């Protein structure tokens, strides 16, 4: 790590450009780990299909645009609903049958589903990416004096931050969220109070999947829409989740954005390590605080 001392400080625009890339990646890490954390809280499974559902979100936006002429803005609402509905079907038909079994079976089932979904998309669309144009309103960029900011990238950061905070607000500050947190602590007791916990579980899974799909729509104009985009990101998100701990909503948001930034910084100072830096941090966190930075020891 000391080797960066020998490298001259890079020019400011390059530094800020990488910081921006880091924040963009961080937005996706935060949205995805937020969805994972919500699902884990209530269902106690790690949703391995999350990457595939993110990819489905991007493809769904692409289908809407190229097959039905429905543009970016409606997609932001339609896609999470469509993909979330598919998630609800998955929960109802498959995940529900695993109740009472070791939680690892949930991981294995969703892993199998991810293979099926990714395989089907790869069979149909190959491994190369499909382009998705940035909506007209968000094209171009602005010179901020110290750097050039493409408007769409700024939008992604602001919008995903807003979605993250809204999700945090719903869970921590509303009646619905209170029920959700109570069911996470003690589901049978909450059910005894007359709250339909199975329905809540289904909707929660749908909401988590919807968040992944929303991240997919946001990502479509930045990265190419490709069948492999999900599996590329999901393993990094798993590391983010281990670092942050799954216990806290705010923790998922903070560690998502923070690790994205750190990854961006590494690209500036020590590019060779940029693809592994998050895994190294994960190893360090495990040494110091095995439960994760925001996690509760179990």
């Amino acid at each position, binding site marked *: 790590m000391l080797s960066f001392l020998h490298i001259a400080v890079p020019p400011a625009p390059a530094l800020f450009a990488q910081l921006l890339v880091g924040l963009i990646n961080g937005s996706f890490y935060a949205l995805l780990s937020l969805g994972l954390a919500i699902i*884990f809280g209530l269902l106690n*499974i*790690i949703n391995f299909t999350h990457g595939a559902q993110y990819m489905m979100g991007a493809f769904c936006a692409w289908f809407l645009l190229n097959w039905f002429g429905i543009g970016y803005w409606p997609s932001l609402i339609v896609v999470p609903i469509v993909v979330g509905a598919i998630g609800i079907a998955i929960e109802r038909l*498959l995940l529900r*049958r*695993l109740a*009472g*079994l*070791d*939680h*690892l*079976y949930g*991981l*294995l*089932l969703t*892993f*199998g*589903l*991810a*293979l*099926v*979904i*990714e*395989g*089907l998309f*790869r*069979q149909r669309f190959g491994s190369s990416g499909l382009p998705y144009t940035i909506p007209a309103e968000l094209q171009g960029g602005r010179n901020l004096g110290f750097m050039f900011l493409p408007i769409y990238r700024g939008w992604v950061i602001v919008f995903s931050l807003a979605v993250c905070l809204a999700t945090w607000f719903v869970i921590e500050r509303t009646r619905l969220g209170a029920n959700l947190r109570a069911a996470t602590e003690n589901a049978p007791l909450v059910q005894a109070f007359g709250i339909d916990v199975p329905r809540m579980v289904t909707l929660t899974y749908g909401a988590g999947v919807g968040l992944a799909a929303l991240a997919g729509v946001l990502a479509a104009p930045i990265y190419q829409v490709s069948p492999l985009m999900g*599996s590329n990101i999901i*393993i*990094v998100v*798993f*590391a983010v*989740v*281990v670092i942050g701990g799954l216990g806290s909503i705010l923790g998922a948001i903070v560690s998502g954005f923070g690790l994205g930034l750190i990854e961006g910084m590494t690209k500036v100072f020590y590019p*060779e390590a940029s*693809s*592994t830096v998050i*895994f*190294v941090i*994960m*190893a360090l966190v*495990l*040494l110091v605080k*095995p439960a994760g930075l925001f996690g509760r020891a179990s």
Partner: protein
Amino acid sequence: MTSGAAKRRSTLIWTVALIVLALAAPYFLYPVFLMRALCLALFACAFNLLLGYVGLLSFGHAAFMGGAAYITAHAVKVWGFPPEIGILAGVAAAAVLGAGFGWLAIRRQGIYFAMITLALAQMVAFFALEAPFTGGEDGIQAVPRGHLFGLIDLDHPLAMYYFVLAMFLIGFAIIQRTVNSPFGQVIKAIRENEPRAISLGYRAERYKLLAFVLSAALAGLAGATKALVLQLASLSDVDWTTSGEVVLMTLVGGVGTPLGPVVGAFIIVTMENYLAQAGSWVTIIEGAIFVVCVLTFRRGIVGVIAPYLTGREQAPAGEPSAKIS
């Protein structure tokens, strides 16, 4: 009640029958197919040692198999090591890697353990992509098989086959010996009830770590042998899909059964062979088998039929285990 002697006798009969079958197999089937299947079977057995007997689901075992494959391929091709020393180098590398990963990963359990091993293995995959000696996308090709102990030419298909079979049997014997030793009893106790095992004075962490290192080393043996068989170490060996595949083989065959992973490996390798031209369909079908197995067939093939074959013992009653075992 089955008497122990009867059970031992039927186990012996099955063992002899299977070994005879394995010795005769290359005269009827394509040796490279058999050797690849044997390597993956050993890989799955090593994985099963961890999942079936310690209850730890590692989602990063490709790192040990693939890592050893790279080390062996490099040692044999660039340093000119003889095959037996090359394999030892690969196994040692996998054991060291396993010690490091295990040391980190056993701090967490269950789902976290799976995610941590997956992430650490991904680090190895990135390393294999970028390191100078691994050949990037091409991998290490044209690895020479060499002469075993300077005497036996492994380029001869039958010689290579019996060498691979010997490696498999050694690995399999080590696993069986481990599982049926006092050490094996302790790791099973930890699987069933870790706090209880700790309260009885067993240092669970050490047992888990030792089992992890052993499993990694044997996965390394499988990878090192495979590198000589296919004369190739490539990125697909360290890819996360390979980690998933070994989970699938074990699940299909039967988690926690001695022969389950072997059966599972042969089934999956056969399927891959037939569907080699079908592109992504292999992935799709593997995923579907995963889903079906988890939903309806958690005991696996051997888990279901073995009770009827060895001794007239009753099948484990009722519920397929809620715990993974």
